[in-house]
């Protein structure tokens, strides 16, 4: 294995039949954040990968030991900043599981609506950046990227009118949610998701059986079912490799059992299978949001009084592992509480950390252009990888 110290000074040696060590990242345009892959090349084919991460490490786990249960939810969204709504949910549910705090029905429905809207927004960003990586910033990829961003802005407008912020919300609170939907929001939300439903049809006709796209996506970056489970990848990657597992169906939380939706599974395991899984997930999430909006019950949005001071929420001694089905897979929060206002230990299971761990196993044998396509289809978010 190449140890990082030695590879810092990297030169050519033209002794024929030699291997070129090339550095992809950390400022590489298609690195999806700050990630450095040291590729060993033979011509165009890659024979070895050493991934260097940790550029965005803020030690969320130490931070959570210094912040109270009231403060940390708005910081939890900084782990997976592309899907802030789902990452906060894991922390809040873990605390509620330990403290056995009951969440009112309306708050559960609000959480489902926001999580599914966030999944659509996050998948839109995935599709845009993936096509941009494969198509080039001055080419067809940028067209799909701008379409996706145009639609994602509509969802961010919804979140902005609900919470006031566009990316990191702090919408959750132990015991329920901090905000209720303003009047007229539900109607605007229905219009937005109808528009997005139509626009997704447009993207599919732009990409679906487009020979150039198929040539880049089919048969590239195949993850076998056994490797998928062994490394612990989750979400669309797992379902793309043939494992029928979705937390919303296997261990329903926050009243997901009230909604009917089907879980897409592809057995291909390659980039195209993951693409197909996510495109179906777009429509499933929109269906869930419609059902949740139609059956949104009235009542309180939090089972605890409004937050008045920093140490107001105290959780009794205990531990719990809460899991949420984020857009990138299982986001888990393993929380140990010692009865005070601050948790004793919090382990954050980021979905992208395990998803990224599969790269060194599947990249060898591909070309450089494939690395970009595989990275895009794995869709890592480096806030969640480096925590």
């Amino acid at each position, binding site marked *: 294995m190449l140890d990082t110290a030695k590879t810092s000074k990297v030169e*050519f040696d033209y002794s024929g039949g030699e291997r*070129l060590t*090339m550095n992809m990242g950390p400022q*590489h*345009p*298609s690195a999806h954040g700050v990630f450095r892959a040291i590729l060993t090349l033979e011509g*165009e084919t890659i024979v070895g990968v050493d991934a260097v991460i940790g550029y965005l490490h803020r030690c969320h786990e130490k931070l959570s030991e210094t912040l109270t249960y009231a403060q940390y939810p708005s910081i939890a969204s900084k782990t997976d900043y592309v899907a802030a709504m789902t990452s906060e949910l894991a922390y809040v549910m873990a605390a509620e599981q330990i403290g056995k705090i009951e969440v009112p029905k309306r708050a559960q429905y609000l959480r489902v609506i926001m999580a599914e809207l966030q999944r659509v927004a996050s998948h839109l960003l995935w599709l845009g950046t993936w*096509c*941009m*990586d*494969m*198509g*080039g*910033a*001055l*080419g*067809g*990829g*940028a*067209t799909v990227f*701008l*379409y996706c961003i*145009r639609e994602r802005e509509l969802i961010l407008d919804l979140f902005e009118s609900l919470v006031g912020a566009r990316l990191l919300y702090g919408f959750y609170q132990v015991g329920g949610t901090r905000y209720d939907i303003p009047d007229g929001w539900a109607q605007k939300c229905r219009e937005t998701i109808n528009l997005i439903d139509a626009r997704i049809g447009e993207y599919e006709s*732009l*990409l679906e059986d*487009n020979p*150039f*796209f198929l*040539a*880049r996506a089919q048969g590239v970056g195949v993850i076998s079912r056994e490797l998928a489970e062994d490394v612990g990848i989750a979400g669309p990657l797992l379902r793309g490799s043939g494992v029928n597992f979705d937390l919303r169906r296997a261990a329903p939380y926050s009243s997901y059992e009230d909604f009917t939706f089907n879980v897409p599974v592809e057995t291909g395991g390659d980039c195209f299978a993951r693409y197909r899984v996510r495109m179906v997930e777009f429509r499933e999430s929109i269906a869930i949001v419609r059902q949740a909006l139609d059956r949104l019950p009235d009542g309180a949005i939090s089972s605890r009084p409004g937050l008045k001071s920093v140490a107001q929420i105290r959780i009794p001694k205990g531990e719990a592992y809460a899991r949420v089905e984020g857009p990138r897979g299982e986001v888990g929060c393993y929380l140990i509480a010692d009865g005070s206002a601050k948790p004793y230990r919090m382990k954050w299971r980021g979905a992208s950390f395990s998803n990224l761990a599969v790269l060194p196993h599947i990249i060898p044998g591909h*070309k*450089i*252009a*494939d*690395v*970009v396509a595989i990275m895009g289809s794995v869709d890592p978010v480096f806030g969640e990888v480096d925590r």
Partner: protein
Amino acid sequence: MPAWLSPLVAPFIVLNVVIGLVTYVTLLERKFAARMQSRIGPYRVGPHGLLQPIADALKLMMKEDIVPRTADRRVYNLAPIVFLVPCMLIFATIPFAPGLGVADLNIGILFFLAVSSMEIVGLFMAGWGSNNKYALLSAMRAVNQIISYDLPFIFAALVPVLLAGSLKLSEIAAAQQGLWFIFYPVIGQLAFIAFVVSTLAAENRVPFDILEAESELVAGFRVEYSGMKFALIQLGEYAHVIGSSFLGAVLFLGAWAGPGPEWLGPLWMLLKAMFLFLLITWVRWSFVRIRVDQILTLSWKVLLPFTLLLLVSTAFVVVWRAGV
């Protein structure tokens, strides 16, 4: 006008017209692409961004010209010029109007094709000279791609030559008065598609632009260039694209034929070339780039046999038409 001056006047005028055209074509492309992506494109510099190309040119001229310490100095400095000269030479034989043109050689199209494949030398010099891994990889890719696409480009360009029966571009244009070669029953359309596809590949436009594939090789062979050298390479690339679209206009769209009085010829010629250019831009902003090995397989296994077959069949058709 003194005798020694007259041969210089026409090339001087054409050169300046081309440079002016190239700068404003970049603006046209950016505006057109922006509208396709539901945004606006350059808007701030001048009314509706009309002065943007001039601003870009001035900016590039003022930019500091950095030469990497480990670069192979002579090759690095010579590369942009060697790349630019062929791209400008291709305008020599293009007839803009019946009499208007720098040099109407009787081997017009042969000259065009020969010169346009010279640019690969400048490109590889740029890739090699800048002593940068990304540049070297992209230069190697460039050599593969352009060489493998020159042949289909030549065969597709030869189909109108067969139909018109002469290499002289003005005669080809004259032969199309009645019927533009693109409307020639079957052969015209197929040859036009082959021509467009191989033009896309010869100038590394998307979906074949693996040369400066930003997501993998950052900026390809131009990565170490800055300032005026970068502008020269950019100028050369766009000049090549416009040259090919002019050639396409002459070969397939009946150069200056068009309704209206005679003197409107050059305008029609310009409009047709711009239509072809927008077609290339339209394709550029709708497709994803494909991998190196797929490009090469497409060229050798699909495009080359197809254009060869097309050429032979046109020959038969011409002989059969002449015979009957």
